[in-house]
């Protein structure tokens, strides 16, 4: 069990309770989808997992260690193993930096760490080229600026950046929501392949159950901060599904 969430609640103001008693265990190498409409608390959950958001009730432990946002030194170690990909790849990348500089920012930040896929003694540019290769981008891209890249390419760069630290947990917050259909599938394929290679845990937040069904083995459904359903993909049509899950499935099914 790598990630254990117990009785997690989050209150923003008196009237807004974003999460209500969430309990969830995720094992190593698992891919789990978190589904819910806007305002259901998906992103709050992701922010808490990354140590970006304080919480008062409940506990979140990763590999036996409690995640406490205020403890900076332990957070630094934790963040190396947990990375995130956001929906908006444009604002993830600094528009003033060429791609290779953006790509190497995490590695520069954790100088003491050298990832296994990079041989020793590579120059910075060679490292960036190698990273681009992993996510299926042309090597020549390293000198370009974010404005010169398409949405799908930028999302690939942010994936490359996230996996450069070889995280054991990757949190994806709607990574394909603003992409075209064909590009969306390419990104999902890339994530699936990377997961197979590195055996990292993927937490995939989305409101698109079809994408979740493609990538994940298990799915949880949030509604107004409550976890209303949790099931393995194979049980998607089981009669025990929550009415809300059924409605979501109905909306997403094609036939």
């Amino acid at each position, binding site marked *: 069990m790598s990630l254990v969430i117990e009785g997690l609640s989050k209150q923003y103001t008196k009237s807004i309770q974003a999460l209500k008693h969430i309990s969830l265990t995720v094992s190593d190498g698992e891919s789990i989808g978190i589904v819910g409409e*806007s305002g259901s608390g998906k992103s709050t959950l992701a922010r808490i997992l990354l140590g970006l958001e304080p919480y008062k009730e409940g506990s979140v432990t990763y590999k036996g260690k409690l995640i406490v946002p205020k403890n900076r030194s332990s957070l630094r170690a934790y963040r190396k193993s947990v990375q995130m990909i956001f929906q908006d790849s444009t604002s993830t990348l600094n528009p003033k930096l060429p791609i290779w500089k953006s790509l190497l920012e995490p590695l520069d930040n954790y100088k003491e760490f050298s990832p296994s896929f990079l041989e020793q003694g590579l120059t910075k540019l060679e490292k960036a080229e190698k990273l681009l290769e992993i996510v299926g981008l042309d090597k020549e891209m390293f000198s370009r600026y974010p404005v010169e890249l398409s949405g799908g390419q930028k999302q690939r760069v942010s994936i490359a950046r996230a996996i450069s630290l070889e995280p054991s947990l990757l949190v994806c917050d709607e990574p394909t929501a603003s992409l*075209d*259909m064909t590009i969306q599938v390419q990104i999902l394929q890339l994530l699936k392949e990377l997961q197979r290679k590195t055996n990292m845990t993927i937490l995939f937040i989305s409101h698109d*159950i*079809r994408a979740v*069904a493609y990538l994940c083995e298990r799915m949880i459904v949030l509604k107004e901060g409550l976890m209303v359903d949790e099931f393995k*993909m*194979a049980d998607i*049509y089981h009669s025990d599904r929550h009415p809300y899950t059924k409605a979501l499935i109905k909306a997403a099914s*094609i036939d």
Partner: protein
Amino acid sequence: MVKSSLISIQDLRITSQSAEKVLISNVNLEIGKGEIVGLIGESGSGKSLTARAVMRLLPPDMKVSGKIFYKGTDVLAVNPKEHRHLLGSGIGMIFQDYRGSFTPFIKIGNQMIETIRTHYKMTKNEAKSIALTVLEEMGLESKRVYDSYSFQLSGGQVQRAAIAMSLALKPDLIICDEMTTALDVMSGERVLDYIDQIRNKTGCSVLMITHDLALAYKRTDRMYVMNQGEIVEEGLPEQIRCHHKHPYTKKLCSCLLALPAKKSIQKKRAYSV
């Protein structure tokens, strides 16, 4: 195939004068009365340009040629005043960016009254009662929405209010440009259900522009597939999905993610048992 044509686009071609580039060409599209037609394609394929050409919302440096017949009149040939008269209430358009549909500093109700009174001669009270009725029809709390500013409502509510506003003018055609893209699945579904409902009730036609093949497949009578400024295939949803001819359509369909099929899961279970 088309019973009685409402709008017919013939050999539409749009070129950008500054970049000397052909943006869309040979676009032929027809929508019959009461029909719901899907126009699908990826970003940059020219779907929105086609819609904007009908509405004459293109930037001035784009040159349009070809013909767009709306109820027998070529909308590209008439002068701006006649065009407003012809389209203002005849064709309603709903955009993806619902935050841009209403001005943030005027209440929704007042904006609706203004729009209605631009097209029909009537008193404020008459306009108000129309506004309240159409808001009610879209399943909104009419009084509350009427007295709200757009930022006080959720995305789905604003999008429904935008449909209500176009409905108030009794359009024959509603163009929905990526209407549900910015909404989450459930509110998107609800908005689409309301579109179906008003179509049944008023008999208006709908042009549904979307990148979501699954949505078009489920919700339209007929669809067009657009790629790089040209329409590459046209047909019934079933044809497009299962018996497509063009390689691009094939590529699109191969990217259509589906939920695991009910049957295959049951089979797997049977084996494992």
